[in-house]
């Protein structure tokens, strides 16, 4: 399938050790809510072009906060980037307005899908193409329908009445309408049946492999995410505690213990695990 995604001009050597260019980079970023709550502390994350990067961590680790910063909507929750910044194609982008970020090709599928419930499938997709011209939007819509034939069947359906899986497809399709370079997905598996999750993940892999899209995948479901990701970061209470290739993370004993539900040292009681969790810290 042809894509209209332009490749960036070659840049100086990226900070990370990966061979490809870094498309999006959180650089030493610190995010504070309400002048009081530090949600993200000195986090650096690099998303290489054309890869799937998984951002893992439990509830409240700050994953969604990072995505909100990326999309420029922190201000709606009194959040402020106090330090560091976000670079996209080597441009500072963390002071740009949300619509400008979308025009540059950064988009996210928000947590909980957030389709416009009273609008039809077609209208939801139209809203995704809001920043594009009518002709561009129609072309994108055909591609979305090719990716999700189900949406084509349901194009006149009110989105609020569709199933969770269809809504997730619509949310992803709507984001794809913006013609993104970088697609971030916030917990795409949340509340969906395993079969539907398989379907969604297949599409995410296709986006990378066939459309050469870069994907930032935020998940609590670490197993799923690491299965398809190239690289992963683990976030805990606002800090990156571990990062590495997906293979390395999957093999890591601690990751297995905490995120993949594999016990290495025999089955302990839940209480022991909790105690162990409390005692063992990721960071010194």
């Amino acid at each position: 399938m042809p894509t209209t995604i332009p490749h960036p001009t070659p840049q100086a050597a990226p900070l990370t050790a990966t061979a490809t260019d870094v498309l999006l980079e959180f650089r030493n970023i610190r995010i504070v809510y309400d002048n009081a709550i530090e949600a993200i502390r000195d986090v650096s994350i690099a998303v290489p072009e054309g890869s799937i990067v998984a951002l893992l961590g439990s509830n409240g680790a700050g994953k969604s906060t990072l995505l909100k910063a990326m999309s420029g909507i922190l201000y709606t929750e009194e959040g402020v980037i106090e330090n560091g910044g976000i670079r996209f194609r080597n441009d500072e982008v963390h002071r740009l307005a949300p619509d400008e970020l979308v025009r540059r090709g950064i988009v996210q599928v928000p947590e909980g899908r957030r389709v416009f419930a009273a609008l039809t499938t077609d209208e939801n997709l139209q809203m995704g193409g809001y920043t594009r011209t009518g002709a561009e939007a129609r072309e994108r819509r055909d591609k979305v329908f090719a990716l999700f034939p189900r949406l084509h069947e349901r194009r006149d359906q009110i989105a609020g009445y569709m199933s969770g899986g269809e809504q997730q497809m619509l949310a992803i399709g709507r984001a794809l309408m913006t013609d993104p370079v970088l697609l971030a997905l916030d917990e795409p598996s949340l509340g969906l049946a395993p079969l539907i999750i398989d379907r969604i993940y297949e599409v995410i892999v296709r986006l990378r492999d066939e459309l050469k899209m870069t994907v930032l995948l935020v998940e609590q479901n670490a197993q799923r995410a690491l299965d398809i990701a190239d690289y992963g970061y683990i976030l805990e209470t606002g800090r990156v505690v571990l990062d590495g290739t997906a293979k390395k993370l999957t093999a890591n004993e601690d990751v297995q213990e905490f995120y993949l539900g594999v016990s290495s040292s025999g089955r302990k009681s839940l209480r022991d695990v909790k105690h162990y969790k409390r005692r063992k810290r990721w960071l010194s």
Partner: protein
Amino acid sequence: MQYLVQLLISGLAIGAIYGLIAMGFAVIYKSTGLVNFAQGEMTMITAYIAWTISTTVSGNVFVVALGAILAAVLLGLIIERLVMRPMLGEPVFATVMVTIGLAVILRSAINFIWDAYPHGLDIGMGRGIVHLGGIGVRTGQLAVIATLLLLLAAIWAFFRYSKVGVAMRAVAADDRTALLMGISATKVHALAWAASSVIAGIGGVFFALSYDLSPAMFQLGLKAFPATILGGLDAVLGSGLGGLLIGITENLAGGYLGSGMKEVAGFAMIIVVLMVRPFGIFGERDIERV
């Protein structure tokens, strides 16, 4: 029978004016989630500007209409930019209080800029009488009913088919997600204020054509607000129809039960309707944010 038809027609005519202003309320509520208590005052100012144009520039219908529409757009944009945008993200209650303050300021502005005497808006139209089957109807009354119906159709098509109209619904439903799609909420809000000002302003000009301009005209807002509640605060078309209902009810009650009942009837109907459908006849959801 003739008396009834006469009452119905004049009820429809005044109801159409309420309906236009009620649609002004609904357009702002639908896209910003706010009730603009300065709607009646904005309507009045647009009517006064139309009158000023007719006395100073030209009394030509098209000049007055175009001038009034432009003035209404500007008025809406200025208020959105200067007063409402700084309140973005503040609690809804505070923002609604700001519109009440704005209402008082605009009300007084009439006395500063113009004067406290009644004026007739004369553009050589609207006061003539046509006879329809033996019933005398003022052309202005027919025109306002036709305008309301035309605008109802236009606005329905706008929200249904135009990209911007769909975007307004999207912003109203979930403004944060709309932002994520690159829809600028501030632009949509500005547009809503401009559109609301124009729609209500048209109602105000028609009122001035049929009756008179006076600094008490802002009370039209107080009459139209119940029409919006009746039709449903988030239902633009419903609000227009709500206006017609209130106009007819008022006139029938006034005609058959005595003029004292005229003021009461509309509100009595609203109380009954809201008991049955608390979110209005055409409203889609509970209105909790007011």
